[in-house]
């Protein structure tokens, strides 16, 4: 699992690649933690670009939940975008699609989180 980060004004787009499962969920959590902290402090919003994520397990989804618990009560915004078909179904079955906005594309996610476009997928 690799995590790439790019910045679009006040939006940080995090792009995990490969698989996140119970063996590397801890590493995934440590990799996203600095960005979650920035979001908590109000500096940035987070968008997870899931277009290169082949699979995410319950342990990986828990990391996303922890991120939301840390950031959202402080006014931060978190979304996910462009999930692969498998990951989109996992989000639906786990009901995580009710936790975060799921955007069809990264562009829509960036636009919505930055307040430049109405929320929608």
């Amino acid at each position, binding site marked *: 699992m690799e995590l790439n980060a790019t910045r679009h004004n006040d939006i940080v787009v995090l792009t995990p690649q490969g698989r996140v499962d*119970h*063996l590397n*969920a*801890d590493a995934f959590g440590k990799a996203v933690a600095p960005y979650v902290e920035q979001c908590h402090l109000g500096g940035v919003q987070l968008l997870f670009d899931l277009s290169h994520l082949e*699979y995410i*397990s*319950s*342990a990986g*989804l*828990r990391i996303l*939940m922890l991120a939301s*618990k840390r950031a959202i009560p402080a006014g931060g915004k978190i979304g996910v975008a462009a999930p692969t078909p*498998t990951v989109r*179904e*996992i989000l*639906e*079955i*786990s*009901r*995580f699609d*009710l*936790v975060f906005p799921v955007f069809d594309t990264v562009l829509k996610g960036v636009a919505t989180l930055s307040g430049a476009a109405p929320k929608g997928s």
Partner: protein
Amino acid sequence: MRIRFWGTRGSLPVALTAAELRQKVAGALVHAGGRRFETAAEAEAFAATLPFAEAQTFGGSTSCVELELNAPGKESHEYILCDLGSGVRSFGNRVLARHGRKTPNVFHIFMSHVHWDHIMGFPFFTPAYIPGNTLRIYGCHDGLEDAFRRQQAPPSFPVEFEYLGAQIEFIKLEPGRKYDIAGLRVTAKKQLHAGDSYGYRFESHGKVVVYSTDSEHKLDSAEETESFVRFFFGADLVIFDAMYSLADAVSVKEDWGHSSNMVGVELCQLAGARHLVLFHHEPVFKDAKIAEIETESRRLEALTRQDAPELTVSAAYDGLEIDI
């Protein structure tokens, strides 16, 4: 081995309401499309072709599962149960109908824990009142016997524990240790739940059944996950607490002591188990909702199977029987 589910609901018994039953009847009539049935048997055969949640119900009795190594006849028999939720009342009635009151039977009962939904059927378990019967109640909690006595004490119930006619023994087990009981190799495992709960791995003649209910998986430790993979390893059947969605289990219902269908699928796939039974259904879920969760769990299993053999996934219902 045959596994028979007498109670599959979590936390609180529930029943179909009049309106829900009326909806099912209306739906079945629409499905029938004006067809005529000459006998009740014909109509029942047609009903059996309808989707489960439309013509039947998952039921509402709380946890009680029977493991049957040999089919009982009218003579004395050794019965094996997991938990004494409200489902045990029907089981007791079936035993009495089979044997009558004069045949002594032995009941080996493995307790996950003593929360009320897992013991509430005991005061209505008629064989406990009949002299000659023997009940051996196994568990890993220190307070096992106290919980049963307290439940029967005033003002909770009119018949105190001392008036029960059967010989009743409480036997403490140590988690991780293997026991040979009633033809089964039994191993208990401590699980995360308020006041602790224990899962059981039962092995007999090369077949393995795991009963793992009221068990939360925190998902924050690979070691914890691996320990359950070992416990479930190669099981023919895993009866698994799938009360919540994953999103609920790790957020609003975190630390409520229950798990999800998604974690059940993952653990069984990692363990190479053959059949996952979703168990301890949330009492607010209607039949259609449980059927939806069953369908989604099967889809998740197919999505994530990769090259592994298929894991069968079923939602438990009161009356379900599975042969392994």
